[in-house]
Each structure stands twice: as structure tokens, then as C-alpha cells.
């Protein structure tokens, strides 16, 4: 990524972080830097700028791991495996962040860090999937076998994801905003955020997404170069 873009991304994320944390939440927002109260969230609302993007990105990362797994199985090109691996590395990091930010939010909003709410269960399941995927990879020596078997597992795991995302929250009652018995449809869907809040929120989402893609490109390219160098060293 060119330097100007990197600087812009840095400034964007700085702005989002500062705005997200420092702008006060008041009942009747008058100034441009004030956020409204949202029923059910109140003071804790600010975490939405960080928690939602991390959850969003871990799912995007998983989607990409699955896509590159499918590509690998079709063409057997190890570059696709490197791309899937880079995506999964970021995916597990964002998954841990999402789980932790979610648990912190849960403590303040619902009273305890963990209560097996369907969405909490889902993010935990995703963490287990990532963990299992890395465990599988580390148990296989041969490059091609490792890529093939982990691609197959990624695809199988991916098809179970719809069960978590869409079905479980509907049938199980939960504390999460937007669950089956929440009378609000959730702050995002209902647009209870005012214009400023929405702006910061979407800027945060965009900023983190660009950051993710940048890190992913760096990740897979470094894996590919490292492998090429290793092969050169042995052939002599």
C-alpha cells in the first residue's frame, strides 16, 4: 500500500479511536461531538465502535479462509493455501479481540462476563474452529497434505457457520441486542444512533476493514516469499 494511503489509514483509525472513546454521551445531543443515550446500552455504547468491527472482521477472515481453501482444492496452488493461512491468522486474532471486548461489554451491561447467550456461544465456537484448524495444520508435515486437509476442514467448518449466525439466535432467547426476545431490534438496525454516531461507527468499520486487508496482503506475501527462499536454499 502506498505511503499516502498508509498515513490516511493511520489518521482515520486515530480519529475513530479518539472520537469513539472521548465523545460524551448525553441525553439531548446538541453539539456535533455528542452521542445520544441508547436504551439498553447507555454509557457502554462506545464499545460498539470496536467490538462490532472485530466481530465483523473475524467472520470476513473466515469467509476468506474458506474461499481460498476452495481455490486451493481446485488448482492445488500453494499460494492459495498461503492466502488462506494469512486470513486465518488475522481471523483468530480478531476473534479473540471480539470475544474479549464482548465479555467486557457483557460485564458492564448484563452483570457477568459470560452467560452462554447464543452470539457469545457462536463467537466461542468460531474460536474453537480456528484453534482446531491451527492444531490440524501443526500435526501434518507434508506441505500439500497439510494444505489439502486443512482446506477440507475449513470448508466443513464454514458450512456449520450459518447454523450459528442465523438459526441459534432466533430459537434461543438471549441477552444480546438483536436476539429473539429483545424488544429493541438493536441499535444498528433501528438507527437509534444519531447521525454523528453512525458516521463514527461506519468510519470505524471501514478503517478496520482496510487495515485487515492490508495486513492480510502483507501476511500472505511474506509467507510466499519465505517459502520460495526456503526452496532455493535447499536446492542450492
Amino acid at each position, binding site marked *: 500500500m502506498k505511503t499516502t494511503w498508509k498515513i490516511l489509514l493511520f489518521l482515520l483509525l486515530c480519529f475513530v479511536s479518539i472520537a469513539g472513546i472521548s465523545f460524551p454521551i448525553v441525553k439531548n445531543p446538541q453539539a456535533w461531538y455528542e452521542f445520544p443515550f441508547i436504551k439498553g446500552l447507555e454509557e457502554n455504547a462506545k464499545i460498539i465502535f470496536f467490538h462490532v468491527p472485530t466481530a465483523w472482521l473475524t467472520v470476513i477472515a473466515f469467509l476468506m479462509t474458506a474461499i481460498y481453501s476452495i481455490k486451493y482444492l481446485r488448482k492445488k496452488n500453494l499460494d492459495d493455501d498461503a492466502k488462506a493461512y494469512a486470513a486465518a491468522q488475522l481471523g483468530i486474532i480478531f476473534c479473540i479481540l471480539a470475544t474479549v471486548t464482548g465479555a467486557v461489554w457483557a460485564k458492564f451491561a448484563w452483570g457477568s462476563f459470560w452467560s452462554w447467550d447464543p452470539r457469545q456461544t457462536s463467537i466461542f465456537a468460531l474460536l474453537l474452529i480456528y*484453534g*482446531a484448524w491451527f492444531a*490440524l495444520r501443526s500435526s501434518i508435515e507434508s506441505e500439500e497434505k497439510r494444505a489439502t*486437509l486443512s*482446506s*477440507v476442514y475449513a470448508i466443513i467448518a464454514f458450512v*456449520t457457520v450459518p*447454523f450459528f449466525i442465523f*438459526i*441459534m439466535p432466533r430459537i434461543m432467547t438471549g441477552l444480546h441486542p438483536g436476539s429473539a426476545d429483545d424488544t429493541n431490534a438493536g441499535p444498528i438496525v433501528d438507527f437509534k444512533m444519531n447521525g454523528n454516531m453512525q458516521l463514527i461507527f461506519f468510519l470505524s468499520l471501514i478503517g478496520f476493514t482496510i487495515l485487515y486487508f492490508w495486513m492480510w496482503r502483507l501476511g500472505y506475501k511474506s509467507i510466499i516469499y519465505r517459502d520460495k527462499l526456503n526452496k532455493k536454499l535447499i536446492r542450492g
Partner: protein
Amino acid sequence: MKSYALFKKDISSELRTRYAINALAMFIIVTLSIILFSIGNERISSSLTGGLFWVIIFFTSMSGLSRVFVSEEERGTSLTLQLIAAPSTVFSGKLLFNLILVFAMNTVIAILYSALFNTFVLKNFALFLTSFILSNIGLAFASTIIAAIISKAGAKGTLYPVLSFPILLPLILTSVQLTLFAMDGTSFETAKFELAIVGCYDVIIFTVSYLLFDFIWKE
């Protein structure tokens, strides 16, 4: 039929050597005993009873369902199978074996469980039976494909539960829910969404496994 012949071969091998059957039987007895000892004289709630039932099923599955592929790999007879059968035949044959094994195993567990835990009362038995059948099918499908994956990797024993649990989680959660419904006497009408979930799970896992097995089997 070729898959059926492979299934017959596995069954007679099993009956002759009795490796898996003995191990599984002992495992079920030991697990039930441990749970009974830990509970002691405490009375457990019906929802706990329903959940515990599936805990036992999960761990018993983890100890017995990987044998279909792992024993072939460890003995070196995978090569033999590759020489006499197409991948789809191997997959169907092994799947059939695991299906029978799952049903046998879980029926034994269900019978022992209802005998030992008096809170395990099934008011809507038809619902339990339907969900039992659907869930067992899903369990067999998922555990077979994961068994194929780990048979080709290292660290087979410990890796099997690690890989299986995330994949089985939607099935286990819904099955626990359905068991609780059956214990409460809920009607089929109310439970139909959960039954549909398990049904979809079965179909999806089977389709994905069938399509991906060739990649696992041939190196």
C-alpha cells in the same frame, strides 16, 4: 453392493477381534459410573439430566468412531482399499459402519441412562425417538468425515475431539434442546423448528462430506 461388502468386511473384522466393541462397552460403563459417583445422592434437575445424556454420547463417540479409518491407516491397509475400491465406495461403506455403530452405542446408552437416572423421564416418547434418529444420523455423518481427516494426519487420538467438537456443536445444542422438549412433553408442533434444524444439518453435512472425501482419501 460394493459399499455393503466393505461394511460386511468391517463388521466381521470387528466381531472377530472385538477391539472397538470391548473398548466402547467399557467406556460407557466407566463414564456412567463416574457421573453417578460424582452426583452421589444429590438430586439433579431434569434439564441437567437431559444435557448430561448428550455429554456421555459425545465422549463415547469420540472414543469409538474414528476406528473405521484410523485402523486402516495404522495397519497399512488403506493402500489395499485404494486398490480395490473407488473413493465413493470407501466413503459409503465406512459411513454405513459408523451409522450402525452410533445407533447401537446410543441405544445402549439411552437404555442404561433411563435405568440409572430416574429424572430421565420422556413424556413425549415419539418426539424423543424422532430426534434420536435424526441426531444419530448427523452424529455419524460428521464424525465419519472428521475421522477420515485425522486418519491422514498425525496425533490422531487427541486431534479427533478437537476437530469434531466445533462441527458437532450445532447438532449437540439442538439435540439437547429436543431432548429437553421430549422430557417436558412438548408437542411436535412446537419442536418442529428444531427438528428441521437437525434435518438440515444431516443433509448439509452429508453433501459436503461426499463432495470433499475424494480430496482427503487420495494423496
